């Protein structure tokens, strides 16, 4: 029952005409109110005409809703030319009866007003245009020209009121543009007549960087995003960026990928980081942030993943050269198209343009790994708040695509690191901190994992070297006081250990030799004894045989004597 009611209500609720403008449909939850007038106001050059035209063009092209563009300021030819650069072929749309551009020219100097009149001519003209192609959308750009064309404001205002009512009756979705006024939204108070939906465009300069912003001032009968949304005028029209991403619903991958440095993988729970996670490498100048990022890229390319590298400090060739000097050769991957380096100066354009740029590059390149080096440099392109907002959106955008993001962050000095990186650390899944350790008048580099969501990670600070063969994380040597030994202290410790080992080896050899000698001498003794034994044995034998002979001789003698004596023998 309740469900039935809610669906019935839903059917009754406001229908929306999708604008087809990137991002705008998101923040209006579906588009502009169908069949109602919408006021778009903004100062000169804020993009009103473009918004109105894009609404019509997208309507005609994508949603099968023909449109009538009433231009009070520019001629049809001018509009056609201007929009050709945005890829809007107005002539083609006109030829296909999907668009009518009606230029209304008002020259006050050739108009004389005498007595009562109304604007029926405008209604008839508009009505004809709408009916001739069955237009569902109308743009009036900008209606305020009427105020300079006609003197009788009373008539004009009542006619405007009639016009908006008439547009509603016609059931067309009408975008009406108006120049921004001093105290009111529009110079002539058009907002008074358009009660349904008002969009405000703004082009502000902040620290010499221009950012366009869009805000939905009101939208009767619909929820809508209430923030100021930055937008861009790009090659293909307007692109609005919702600041707060609408959801946190990306799938988290359980796949682990290597950082390219075996020992770093070990520090990260033995398996490296998660695919699709965000990794922050922070460190002071010269700690090797870029090297870590480049190493990661190389490993990713080797695995067959595509890497997109946004460099805000160095040119591509400089990065390649520098990385080659530490044994990380990226050139082959660039040549094979596995890797792409996009280098721009952050101050070249505003924050939003960077975001758009990054997004667009991502769309065309389709990376698995994205490096932003360094993310801290982007803060030059906007205020802290803007940077954070942009990064939030950027990271959400990437996470949705399961792209692994490596951001490097330059910090001024170690103590300020927390302050600086805190803004973005909440967006990061893994935070690797590189820093210099000063001891014994040396600077040595140490790496530690501050956090790594969803995995065990090492708590050990490790020393690493940037060598010809890349990044080498060293063995851990603890000093007598328990501190990590680095640099020459570590080398000394290593040497000492080596020396100790050598000494020990020597001692063992010595002892071995001694024992061997002893054995040898024992051997010799055994031989000597053996021979003595043999000698004695020989002697004994001889003695026995001699004795025997002597005994036999005695017997013989006795026998002889007996025979001589003729005496009895003993036998």
């Amino acid at each position: 029952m309740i469900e039935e009611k809610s669906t019935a209500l839903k059917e009754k609720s406001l229908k929306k005409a999708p604008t087809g403008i990137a991002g705008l449909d998101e923040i209006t939850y579906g588009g502009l109110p169908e069949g109602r007038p919408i006021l778009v106001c903004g100062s000169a050059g804020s993009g009103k005409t473009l918004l109105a035209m894009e609404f019509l063009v997208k309507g005609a092209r994508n949603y099968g809703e023909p449109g009538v563009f009433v231009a009070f300021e520019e001629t049809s030819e001018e509009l056609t030319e201007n929009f050709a650069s945005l890829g809007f072929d107005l002539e083609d749309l006109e030829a296909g009866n999907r668009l009518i551009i009606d230029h209304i020219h008002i020259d006050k100097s050739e108009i004389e007003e005498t007595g009562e009149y109304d604007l029926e001519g405008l209604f008839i003209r508009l009505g004809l245009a709408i009916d001739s192609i069955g237009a569902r959308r109308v743009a009036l750009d900008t209606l305020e020209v009427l105020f300079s064309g006609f003197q009788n404001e009373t008539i004009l205002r009542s006619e405007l009121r009639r016009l908006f009512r008439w547009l509603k009756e016609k059931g067309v979705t009408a975008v009406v543009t108006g120049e921004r006024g001093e105290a009111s939204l529009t110079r002539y108070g058009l907002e008074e007549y358009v009660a349904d939906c008002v969009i405000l465009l703004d082009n502000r300069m902040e620290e010499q960087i221009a950012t366009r912003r869009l805000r939905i001032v009101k939208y009767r009968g619909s929820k809508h995003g209430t923030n100021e949304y930055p937008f861009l005028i790009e090659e293909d029209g307007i692109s609005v960026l919702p600041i707060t991403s609408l959801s946190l619903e990306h799938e988290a991958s359980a796949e682990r990928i290597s950082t390219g440095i075996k020992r770093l993988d070990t520090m990260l729970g033995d398996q490296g980081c998660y695919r699709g996670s965000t990794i922050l490498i922070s460190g002071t100048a010269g700690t090797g942030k870029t090297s870590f990022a480049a190493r990661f890229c190389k490993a990713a390319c080797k695995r067959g993943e595509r890497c997109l590298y946004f460099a805000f400090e160095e040119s591509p060739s400089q990065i390649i050269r520098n990385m080659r000097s530490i044994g990380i050769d990226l050139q082959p991957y660039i040549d094979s198209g596995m890797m792409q380096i996009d280098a721009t100066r952050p101050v070249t354009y505003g924050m939003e343009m960077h975001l758009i740029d990054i997004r667009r590059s991502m769309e065309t390149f389709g990376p698995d790994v994205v490096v932003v080096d360094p993310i801290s440099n982007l803060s030059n392109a906007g205020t802290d708040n803007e940077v954070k907002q942009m990064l939030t959106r950027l990271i959400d955008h990437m996470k949705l695509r399961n792209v692994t993001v490596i951001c490097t962050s330059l910090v001024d000095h170690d103590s300020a690191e927390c302050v600086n990186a805190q803004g973005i650390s909440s967006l990061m899944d893994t935070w690797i901190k590189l820093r210099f350790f000063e001891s014994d008048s040396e600077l040595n580099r140490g790496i530690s994992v501050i956090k790594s969501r969803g995995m065990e990670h090492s708590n050990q600070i490790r020393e690493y070297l940037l060598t010809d063969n890349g990044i080498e994380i060293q063995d851990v040597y603890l000093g007598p006081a328990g501190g990590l030994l680095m640099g020459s202290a570590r080398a000394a410790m290593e040497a000492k250990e080596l020396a100790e080992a050598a000494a020990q080896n020597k001692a063992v050899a010595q002892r071995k030799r001694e024992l061997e000698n002893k054995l040898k001498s024992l051997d010799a003794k055994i031989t000597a004894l053996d021979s003595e034994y043999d000698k004695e044995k020989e002697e004994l034998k001889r003695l026995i045989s001699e004795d025997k002979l002597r005994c036999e001789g005695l017997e013989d003698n006795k026998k002889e004597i007996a025979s001589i004596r003729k005496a009895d023998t003993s036998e």
Partner: protein
Amino acid sequence: MKSEVQSNEEPASAEPDTLPDQETYILRLYVAGQTRKSLTAFANLKKICEEHLGGRYRIEVIDLLENPQLARGDQILADPTLVRKLPPPIKKIIGDLSNTERVLIGLDLRQME
């Protein structure tokens, strides 16, 4: 009223070098249906022309309800609108033409003082 008309005779007669006698005014009155305003405008126009142009004028009345496509050509927004097609330049007078003075100024029949 009368004196105004008379005083107009002089510039009109002094004009032949810029406005030859044989030059005909072609006036087009755009209206949207037979409304009170349009009828008033037509009546006012007729009167003014008779008084100031003698026979040197032609009035075309265009009903935009019947020929809406004609609104575009002469850039018609207001109803009623009087367009002086000839002599050039094109002049537009909007409203029911109840202010004769302004109509005359609009038609260049009276010099601005």
